[in-house]
């Protein structure tokens, strides 16, 4: 018979204990079931800092996205600075799934000293439906000193650019007149905006 009863404590303390079990399968199931427990958000995110198994990490990230909320967003923003690209990219995916919860952080992140954090934040803007998005992107195009941050903004504008974006697009081209990629992607975004 394929159908088997699985016995283990499913209450919150039991599941949290299983997050540290020696068996990756047990940890994965605990991470999965904890998506139903809002109070588990902090523990789930904390586990990401020490979990070495990729399959458990993946489920931790999925459950964090399902839980959402301010503590998840805060934890993911911390992970943006991780040295581990898997953790960084996992955090970005979670944040991309929580556009409204991440919106209050955007302004601050767009001025982060770390240009990579600014790039990740710009990438998130593509999924965020917020009245400030065009203004934020325009600001990056006109003022961010790092060419790759501007490049990230151009990538987003190729899909969501509007007529109001045009002056900033031209400004970016002028600021980085020597850069082949900036010219190429600005022209693409401009062409995609086309005629309304």
């Amino acid at each position: 018979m394929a159908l088997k009863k699985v016995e283990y404590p499913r209450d919150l303390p039991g599941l949290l204990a299983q997050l540290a079990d020696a068996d990756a399968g047990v940890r994965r199931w605990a991470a999965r079931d904890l998506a139903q427990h809002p109070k588990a958000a902090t523990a789930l995110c904390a586990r990401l800092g020490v979990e070495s198994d990729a399959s458990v990490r993946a489920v931790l990230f999925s459950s964090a996205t399902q839980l959402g909320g301010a503590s998840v967003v805060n934890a993911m923003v911390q992970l943006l600075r991780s040295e581990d690209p898997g953790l960084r990219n996992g955090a970005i995916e979670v944040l991309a799934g929580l556009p409204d919860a991440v919106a209050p952080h955007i302004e601050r992140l767009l001025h982060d000293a770390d240009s990579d954090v600014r790039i990740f934040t710009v990438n998130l803007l593509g999924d965020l439906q917020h009245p400030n998005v065009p203004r934020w992107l325009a600001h990056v195009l006109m003022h961010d000193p790092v060419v790759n941050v501007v490049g990230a903004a151009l990538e987003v504008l190729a899909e969501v650019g509007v007529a109001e974006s045009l002056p900033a697009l031209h400004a970016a081209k002028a600021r980085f007149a020597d850069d082949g990629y900036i010219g190429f992607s600005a022209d693409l975004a401009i062409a995609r905006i086309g005629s309304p």
Partner: protein
Amino acid sequence: MKKILVVDDAATVRMYHRKILGDAGWHTDEALNGVEALERVHAQEADTAFDLYVVDINMPRMDGYSFVRELRRLHARHQAPVVMVSTEARSQDASGAFDAGANCYLVKPARARELVLTAALLLGDRDAALKAAAGVNA
């Protein structure tokens, strides 16, 4: 004709790199993350395997380092030089690239000429290398 796989989650970057490499005379294909890249690799027949991989580091689902590590575990017929291209200028990221099995590391934005020259050298394409060095494909 030599064939290059461009792996990057940004559509415009893929477009740009493919245009530059295509103008230099090579055939290209693309993938938007490490998993899709592995699928492209597996989809090739033995006589049409990729000759070069141009790989971004930061991608969702499977990052560039993980892709290269997985690639290096595959059969010999899939093996080819890897150029990692990334925004990161931190020195440990370059060594991370070499540890994963990459052959070369370029910091974004890679100038068209630099990308073409690097590709030409790794492909053993002497004519393209000389052209790129002379600035014909700037």
